[in-house]
Each structure stands twice: as C-alpha cells, then as structure tokens.
C-alpha cells in the first residue's frame, strides 16, 4: 500500500500491541551477534580479577563432587544404582552434578537476567529474548570447561568410550532447554515481581534434591504413580540418561519422553508468555 522510495529501507510500524505476539525468529537471527557478545561479556566479567580465572568453572564442580562423595557416599552411605561398584561413587555423582549444575546455573542466570540488564532494556531496542538466551549461553560455556573434568574422571576410572556417549549431546540440550523454559517464565515474572529472585536460590536447591544427584533413582519405587510424578522433573530424565550413557546404569527409557514432553510444554508456553510480557519490560523494570 505504501510506496517505498528506497526499498532497501525497511519500514517499522509502531502501534500498540496486545495479545499474543509471534516469535519473530528473524529478528532474533538478525541480532545473533549480540547473543554472542553478551555471553562473552558475562564470561569475561565473571572471571576478571580472579587469580584462577576460568579455572573456577572447573574447580566448582570438582569441589561439589568431593563433598558429595565424602558426605553422601561415605558418611551417609548412599549407594549408586544397582550394578555399579561403590568405588565409582565419585563419577556416579559427577555424572549427575554436571548436567544439574548446568541446569541450575542457566536457570539462575536467565531468571535474573532481565532485571540485571534493566539499563539496556530501558534505553535500547533489541529482541528481548536475547538477554535470557545469552545468560544460558554463559552457563553453557562453564559447562564445557567442567566437561574436561569428566574426561579426566573417565580416564581415571577407566570408563569405556562407547557410541552411547553421543547421547550426552541431546541430553545436554534437553537440560539447557529445560532451564531456558523456566528461565523465560521466571525472568519475565521477575520484571514485575521481584519476589521471584528471592525464591530462586531455594528453588534451585530444592530442584537438586528432587533429582537423583546424591542418591540413586532406585530409591524411587519402580512402578506406580510416584515414578511418573518423579518423571515430571525433566532433570530426573536427563541425569538418568547421563548415568546410563556413562556408567551403564538403568536406562531412563519412557521416563525421558515424559521429560521431553514437560520441557516442550514449558518452553512453548514460556516463549509466548515472554513475548506477551515483553512490551511492558521497559516500563516496568
């Protein structure tokens, strides 16, 4: 309808919007470099002026593993899954800590990301999804460093390298998407209700206890309703998948499909909720 004099200039329409917004992945793609730069900023800033620098990304999960092994493995005497020798408890717990910490970090960072970047939100336009996405990206970078430790442990405990290890890739992706899905909900809610950020430390701690990190999934009754309730936690499927791929533990099987379904529902609803709330961020934050 409008005659465009110079067709290379795109036209932007400004109008009040209401209801559900399309995802607009094209705009996200246009700004992909910004995701990279914001992720890079988070990483740079976190390890600036720290003597050990990125070494902390390796040390933190190692400390956790040592703590878990001493407290849960030795003192509390928790056993790995049936069929896994007890002396493998360190790698048994690490196989769970690795995706769990990725999930926790990504969830925590993305949930507070919008409020943390309030100065950007109120001054400059860019697709708002970039902010929680790059927060998740920063957690993923830490995860890759922690993976090096896993490699070391596999050598130390002579864990065989099998094609099954390739399953770690989709499992990791599932953990990331789960964190992103919840992060989208919480970050948008946090813009309006700061109560969210007070709740997050508790949430991520509770989530760890609700996942088979310190203990074996065998403690959950094999059949019946509780098994399925437990499966609603997507991290239960991810962790069991990790242990299966690495240590030949009980396969997650049908369990995992519940996780995938839960994540899909949370992610799609989270994306649309985020997009719907997005237009008020600059005014509310």
């Amino acid at each position, binding site marked *: 309808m*409008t*005659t*465009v*004099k*110079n067709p290379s*200039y*795109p*036209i*932007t*329409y*400004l*109008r*009040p*919007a209401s209801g559900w917004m399309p995802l607009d992945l094209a705009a996200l793609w246009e*700004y992909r*470099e*910004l995701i*990279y*730069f*914001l992720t*890079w*900023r988070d990483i*740079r*800033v976190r390890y*600036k*002026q720290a003597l050990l620098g990125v070494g902390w990304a390796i040390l933190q999960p190692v400390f956790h593993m040592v703590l878990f092994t001493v407290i849960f493995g030795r003192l509390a005497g928790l056993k790995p899954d049936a069929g896994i020798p007890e002396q493998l408890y360190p790698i048994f717990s690490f196989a769970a800590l690795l995706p769990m910490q990725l999930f926790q970090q990504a969830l925590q960072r993305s949930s507070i990301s919008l409020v943390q970047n309030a*100065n*950007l*939100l*109120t*001054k*400059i*336009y*860019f697709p708002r999804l970039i902010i929680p996405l790059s927060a998740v990206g920063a957690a993923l970078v830490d995860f890759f460093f922690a993976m090096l430790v896993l490699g070391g442990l596999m050598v130390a405990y002579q864990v065989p390298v099998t094609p099954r290890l390739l399953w770690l890739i989709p499992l990791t992706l599932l953990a990331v998407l789960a964190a992103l899905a919840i992060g989208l909900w919480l970050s948008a809610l946090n*813009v*309006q*209700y*700061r*109560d969210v950020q007070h709740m997050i430390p508790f949430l991520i701690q509770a989530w760890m206890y609700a996942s088979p990190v310190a203990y074996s999934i065998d403690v959950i009754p094999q059949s019946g309703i509780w098994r399925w309730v437990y499966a609603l936690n997507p991290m239960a499927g991810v962790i069991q998948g990790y242990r299966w791929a690495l240590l030949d533990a009980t396969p997650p099987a049908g369990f995992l499909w519940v996780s995938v379904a839960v994540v899909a529902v949370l992610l799609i609803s989270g994306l649309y909720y985020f997009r719907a709330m997005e*237009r008020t961020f*600059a*005014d*509310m*934050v």
Partner: protein
Amino acid sequence: MSDWAIRVERLGKQYRIGTLNSQRYQTLRDAITGVFDRSARSAVSGRIWALKDVSFEVRQGQVLGIIGRNGAGKSTLLKILSRVTQPTEGFGEIRGRVGSLLEVGTGFHPELTGRENIYLNGAILGMKRREIERKFDEIVEFAEVGAFIDTPVKRYSSGMYLRLAFAVAAHLEPEILVVDEVLAVGDAEFQRKCLGKMSDVAQEGRTVLFVSHNMSAILRLTQEALVIEKGRLKLRAPTAEAVDYYLSQGYSQEGQRTWDADEIPPEAAPFRPRAVRVLSAEGRVTDTVRSTEPFHIEVEYALDAPITGLRVGIYLMSMRGEYIFTSFDTDDPQRFERYPVRQPGVYVSRCTVPADWLNEGRYAVGINASSFRVRRYFQDDQALSFMVDATGAPGTQWTEARLGPLRPRLDWKIEVKA
C-alpha cells in the same frame, strides 16, 4: 509526498503512576491483596499520559530539534520512536534503521577494557562485528584514548569514559539517528567535538532527531524544531521561533521571582533564596528597563546558619542561553575580606548594571550561591527574565536591529586626515 522518514499519528503513551514513582515495582503480595482490597486497587490504577495526541512527519535527511522541559515527554517520544517502549495509542511508521543515542555508554561494563567495550557497546547499538572492526581505529582516534585502550574502563577518567562512549555511538550508521542530551556532560572541548560530529551526520543526509537543553546547539544544528509541553506537541516552527517560544515560557515576567519553601532543594541549606528582582533606576520592581539608564539586580536570601566564604552572584544570559557575564557580590577583594563568615540573617545583595550597556531584547538572570571550591549551595540558571528597551540608545536613528548583546555608547572621534 512520500519522502518521509518518520510519520506518527496521534501517538499517546500512558503510564501507571505506580510504575513511575519510587515504588517502581509491585510485589506479588500487593497484587494478591489488591484483588481483594478495592482501595489498594484504585491506588495502583492511577494513570497519567506522558504523551498524548502527538502527530508529525519528518522528511528524509531532515535534522529536527525537539525541545521541552524535563518531564514534558521528549524522552517518552524518543523511546517510542526507537522501539524501546510501545505507544498506548496512535500509530507510527519509520523508514530505515533507527540508531538511538538515548544515553551514551549504555551497556558499558566497568570491568572490561576500552577495546572490549567498543565491541560490546557496538553490538548493543546494533552494529555488526565486521562493521565495528572496520571502524575500530577511527573510534579509538576520535575518543583519544589510544594508550589506554586495553585498560579496564573503570580506571578511566570520566572524560575519557564519555569520549569513548560517544565515539562508539557516533560511528553508528543508521538511516535515522535519535540523540538525547548527549551534550549535557563533558567539557567544552568535547562538546564542540560532539557537535561537529553531529553536523557531519546531518550533512551526510541522514535523518536526525536531536533533543537538548542546549539552545545554541539546537539553533546551530537544526532548522526546524518541535516544542513539547506536558506531553503535547505545542508548536512546530523554524528553530529560532521555537526556541523563542520555549524560552519565553516558564520565566517569571514581572521583574521578580520568589521561592516558596517547597521549591528550594534540601541541599541548599543553610542558604535559602527568597527573591531575585530587577529594579529600575528609581528602585521600582520592573520587567522592562531602559538601556540608557542604570538598573539594579538584587538577590534576597536568608541564612539559617553562618556560611564561611559565601559569595552570592548572578549570571546574565541571552535567552538562547549564552553567557554575557557572571558577577559575585564579593568580587571586590576588600569586600570579600570584610565578609569572611556571613552570619545567620536575611540579606540583600544588590548590584548596579551601568547605563548604555545592554542591547535591546530579553535577557535571563541566573543566580548562584557558593563557597569557592567548598560547596555550591544553590543555583538557578533560569531564575528570571527581563526586557531592555533601547529607546534613545546609540544608533537608534537607524531602525535596524543591532547585532550582539551589548550596545555601548563608545567614545568615537572622527578625524580628517587630509
């Protein structure tokens, strides 16, 4: 005509009062109790229009000034145009990429080095990495931070920080550039550089929206300006006319300006301004003085506690904000020594401006009360304005307007050499 770059129609933006004042966010509890408590609900639903019924068009390549007082809605308008926030009503179209300089240095991180911040800030402003790489040297040169480029910006002086921030933003190449008050900060040299860059941008044929409180910058850079008042578009006119209109608003025009208790910022204590007045030669408060007669400007103030080294003075400015002079009551060294400490009480500091000195026109008086290098108690750059009538002044036999703020009666001699 279809050569517009920006076109907006009946744009309006409503804010809930609750989101504007100090109670910036609600808690979940408020929201929950609000559902049951009607009074809490109505308190939250107070709304104001920050912008209402604003319609205008900007041609491609035009540099348009936007002026208005703080809180008039300028920033809201720019935020809508740069898509940071959405209008509540109305409609707008923008042709081309919008680059906004709503605040220089947005997204700068103090822990990162100058180099890292250039990349980060460039990306935030919408530049591609290749574009930043191409302009990197130019940016560093413009910012004059050469040797410190790999130092974290938290160690920069505020001047360096600003120069770098502006340099990145100034090298954006959007079709439409939105600039808000970048010149409010920085030293004179830096401001000149920024203005130079801005006029370069304009000459390249890009569309610029320029918001500033600096009227001489607005006059220099723009031919046309919008005046926004209380969220509404009051006037669109050639810049000189718009500036005159803007400046004549809000000034007291009775030759006197007084301050109520609630207009005095708490930081001013123990200094309390009471009034500033323009007095004719006979001592009458007046809005218009004659240029051929001396007149007085006086500041009346109260001190609630003794102040050491106090000086109370005035600025005289043209209505465009250019300074003509600054003068303090203790400029005379002997008088300064006579008042080392001013005791509590009510004072009047009065000066006399000589006859045959100012040109005709309207002038602004600002006041300042400070102790040198110790503290500035109070300052108001727009305290009052007054008219100078040039009847009988030198040269009035010719009806032309004389250039310049002064109209002195100089002692001319004409000698016949041959």
